[in-house]
């Protein structure tokens, strides 16, 4: 905290940062942007019931947290191809023939058909995929209805992005910490690269911390922009993060840089862990990671001795065959270095006590043990399913006051690959009804060919969407969804942090677009269970959720755009950790009970296949897009007209590839077309490709899917056993064997063959 400053009231008037003057006919709304998953607090300016501008917040703690995706949102949601009315499929699945129907007609038929599926196959035959993180407004209602109806088969992209990290973090200390960027002295970025227009608040936090003198360590195969600013950059081999962290622990243990008091008083399994770490001398780690052992040791010392340090969440370790061990090692590093629940370290915040959280609304306690045991994937890969998370019910009640804590929605999920196999008729029982909301599942999980087969094998598919995505093209019903400009939001961040933020509704939704709240309420009614969603409106639900503040929702949102819980540190000294032992479990009792190795380990790559000599890193993010979205916005497509494959000059030369040349990337699972972008920041032998490419202007329907069959990276994402994490069952996306081929001009011409975009109504 800065020293007290002399205060002159005139300074308030003269402060550089000023709230903007109100313009004629323009009203302002304090909103939270949901054009990506980082949730920037912004201001929406409204004129004639239209949001005409999205700009930076007037609140200085959110200043400049805005990027091009938020700024372009008013135009993105005004796109002429936005779905504005319910559509019912009238031809064969994927034929592209639709009939406009009313909401009442659609929901009545959906309810009737879903009841038939449940009557014939049981409630577990209904699966739902909501990218709840992105739509951010499911309010827990989807899970609530599923839990009452009896289906455990909910899945989401958070299975391989943050949600699974939350579940795995619980194994070690019972909660998912959030790094205290404001007070930290050292930040470790493991492969991800927040930028001005990508995860903007994190970029702001990191740059601000560096400006205050915090150290930055980056582990990344390529020299990212963060790596260029780092104090230490470790250019490790893709997918070797686990080995790298073993090396850090080896140095920290050998040189006794760990927090001995904390380890002695608050951990179990130290000696067993130390013995496992001893299997990774720096020479071995250097070989596994491809990094200089001197620099590995230097980074370990910097992390352990700089003061409170943080290892922020990274998607890179969420998507590896060693994911569970990698996430566990991050947790272990945080703990043994004494960074847990201290200022500048990793905060275990718990829920905000003033707000009814979404985990409570979800009502997991009503789903029977018998139905929970049917959750797909839970027998082979249990960690983030009910089976793996049940161990935390009692400890979580003891420490955080409730049994079920669905942190980042990742703690009670079905395993995606197992669910799609069941949908395709390859599972322990059939899944015949599939709903997805704000989610493009075909392209968002591994093994896209399997997902297409799975969708083609359904009796009922319902999409709640804004645009005709490749997944929506295979639906029976597409129901028009609202956008974040058109609804309020109470953002509780699913327990990751206790701070709650609010977003005002800025304009009415166009056409017949409706919110997820209305969707779930109408579905509960259609299933003859109206009592499951007893609130009349979203605002009514929010009144209930904020009642403990003594305010109504209207009053709450008008009073503040952020609501902090009273900060507390070292809470474990009073109540212990929310693990079965009450301590930090360096050796996991839960993994041991589930018959997995209770200590972290490193699975080396399978033997090299000469057919696929290169390594593929999928999931590259482009500033103008988020996940599979925003391809319909002209300004964004101008910035990213084609998907680009990043490759080193050496590898490009070896394959005779020139800049901007079209190539094909292939592996055992599939192939995609992509343009080459030669970068000297890339290492030889590795290529990086972007996530989620399709082109809305290309031909729709089965066999085309608006270019997804040509461009989508999910066609290269394997989910066979060698490339799945054992404990979670999530795929390895960071270092998959592949090959690249130059494309002939004929194929190149076909790539630009665009088709009619009109929806047949």
């Amino acid at each position: 905290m800065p020293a007290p400053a002399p205060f002159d009231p005139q300074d308030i008037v003269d402060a550089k940062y000023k709230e903007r003057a109100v313009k004629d006919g323009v009203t302002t709304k304090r909103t939270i942007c949901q054009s990506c998953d980082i949730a920037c607090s912004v201001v929406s300016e409204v004129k004639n019931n239209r949001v005409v501008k999205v700009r930076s917040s007037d609140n200085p703690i959110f200043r400049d947290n805005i990027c091009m995706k938020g700024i372009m949102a008013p135009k993105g949601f005004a796109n002429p191809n936005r779905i504005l009315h319910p559509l019912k499929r009238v031809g064969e699945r994927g034929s592209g023939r639709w009939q406009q129907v009313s909401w009442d007609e659609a929901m009545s038929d959906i309810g009737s058909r879903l009841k038939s599926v449940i009557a014939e196959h049981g409630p577990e035959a209904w699966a739902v995929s909501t990218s709840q993180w992105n739509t951010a407004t499911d309010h827990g209602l989807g899970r609530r209805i599923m839990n009452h109806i009896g289906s455990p088969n909910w899945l989401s992209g958070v299975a391989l992005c943050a949600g699974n990290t939350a579940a795995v973090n619980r194994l070690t200390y019972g909660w998912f910490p959030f790094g205290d960027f404001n007070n930290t002295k050292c930040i470790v970025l493991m492969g991800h690269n927040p930028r001005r227009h990508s995860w903007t608040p994190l970029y702001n936090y990191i740059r601000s911390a560096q400006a205050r003198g915090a150290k930055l360590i980056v582990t990344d195969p390529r020299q990212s922009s963060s790596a260029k600013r780092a104090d230490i950059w470790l250019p490790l081999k893709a997918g070797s993060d686990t080995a790298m962290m073993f090396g850090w622990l080896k140095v920290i243990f050998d040189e006794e840089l760990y927090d001995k008091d904390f380890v002695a008083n608050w951990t179990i399994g130290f000696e067993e862990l130390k013995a496992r770490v001893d299997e990774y001398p720096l020479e071995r780690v250097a070989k596994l990671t491809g990094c200089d052992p001197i620099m590995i040791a230097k980074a370990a010392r910097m992390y352990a001795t700089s003061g409170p340090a943080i290892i922020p969440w990274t998607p890179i370790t969420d998507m590896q065959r060693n994911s569970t061990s990698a996430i566990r090692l991050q947790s272990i590093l945080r703990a043994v270095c004494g960074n847990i629940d201290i200022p500048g370290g990793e905060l275990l915040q718990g829920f905000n006590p003033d707000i009814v959280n979404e985990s409570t609304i979800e009502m997991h306690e009503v789903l029977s043990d018998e139905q929970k045991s049917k959750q797909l994937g839970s027998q082979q890969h249990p960690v983030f399913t009910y089976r793996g998370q049940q161990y935390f019910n009692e400890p979580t009640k003891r420490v955080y006051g409730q049994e079920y804590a669905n942190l980042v929605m990742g703690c009670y999920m079905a395993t995606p690959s197992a669910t799609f196999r069941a949908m395709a008729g390859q599972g322990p029982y059939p899944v015949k009804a599939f709903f997805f909301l704000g989610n493009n599942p075909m392209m968002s999980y591994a093994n896209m060919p399997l997902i297409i087969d799975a969708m083609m094998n359904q009796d009922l598919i319902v999409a709640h969407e804004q645009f005709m995505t490749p997944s929506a093209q295979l639906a029976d019903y597409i129901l028009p969804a609202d956008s974040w400009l058109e609804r309020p939001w109470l953002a509780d961040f699913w327990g990751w942090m206790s701070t709650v933020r609010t977003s005002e509704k800025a304009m009415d939704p166009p056409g017949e677009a409706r919110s997820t709240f209305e969707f779930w309420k109408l579905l509960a009614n259609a299933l003859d269970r109206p009592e499951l969603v007893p609130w009349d409106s979203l605002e009514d639900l929010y009144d209930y959720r904020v009642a403990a503040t003594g305010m109504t929702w209207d009053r709450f949102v008008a009073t503040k755009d952020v609501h902090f819980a009273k900060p507390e540190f070292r809470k474990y000294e009073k109540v212990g950790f929310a693990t079965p032992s009450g301590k930090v479990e360096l050796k996991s009792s839960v993994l041991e009970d589930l018959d997995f190795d209770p200590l972290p380990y490193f699975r080396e790559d399978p033997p090299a296949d000469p057919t696929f000599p290169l390594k593929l890193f999928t999931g590259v993010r482009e500033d103008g897009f988020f996940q599979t979205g925003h391809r319909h916005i002209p300004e964004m497509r101008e910035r990213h007209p084609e998907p680009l494959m990043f490759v080193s000059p050496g590898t490009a030369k070896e394959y005779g590839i020139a800049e901007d040349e079209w190539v094909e990337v292939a592996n055992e699972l599939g192939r995609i077309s992509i343009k080459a972008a030669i970068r000297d920041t890339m290492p030889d032998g590795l290529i990086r490709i972007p996530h989620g490419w399709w082109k809305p202007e290309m031909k729709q329907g089965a066999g085309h899917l608006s270019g997804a069959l040509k461009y989508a990276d999910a066609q290269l994402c394997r989910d066979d056993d060698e490339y799945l994490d054992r404990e979670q069952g999530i795929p390895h996306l960071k270092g998959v064997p592949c090959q690249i081929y130059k494309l002939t001009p004929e194929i190149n011409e076909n790539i630009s063959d665009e088709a009619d975009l009109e929806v047949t109504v």
Partner: protein
Amino acid sequence: MSSSQQLSRKGERSAKFTIWLADRSSRNRSMLDKVCRWLVVRETTPPPEEDFMRDDFVDSDLGFDPDELDRYQRGEDIEPLNR
């Protein structure tokens, strides 16, 4: 209490005060709130030459015309929007 524990407790008090300050600053209604906001602004505003958040796309601060957005949504031919 050891010196490191004293330092740790001081850090905790400081962090708690920062949250209190941010909370009052965010409310921005009473005189005390506004003083807090002034302090937060003062402490978080970097000199322009060191302001890593400056960006042409953001700083141009342009918006859209509501009538043009209406026409765009209807699929009518329009001039490039106001960006």
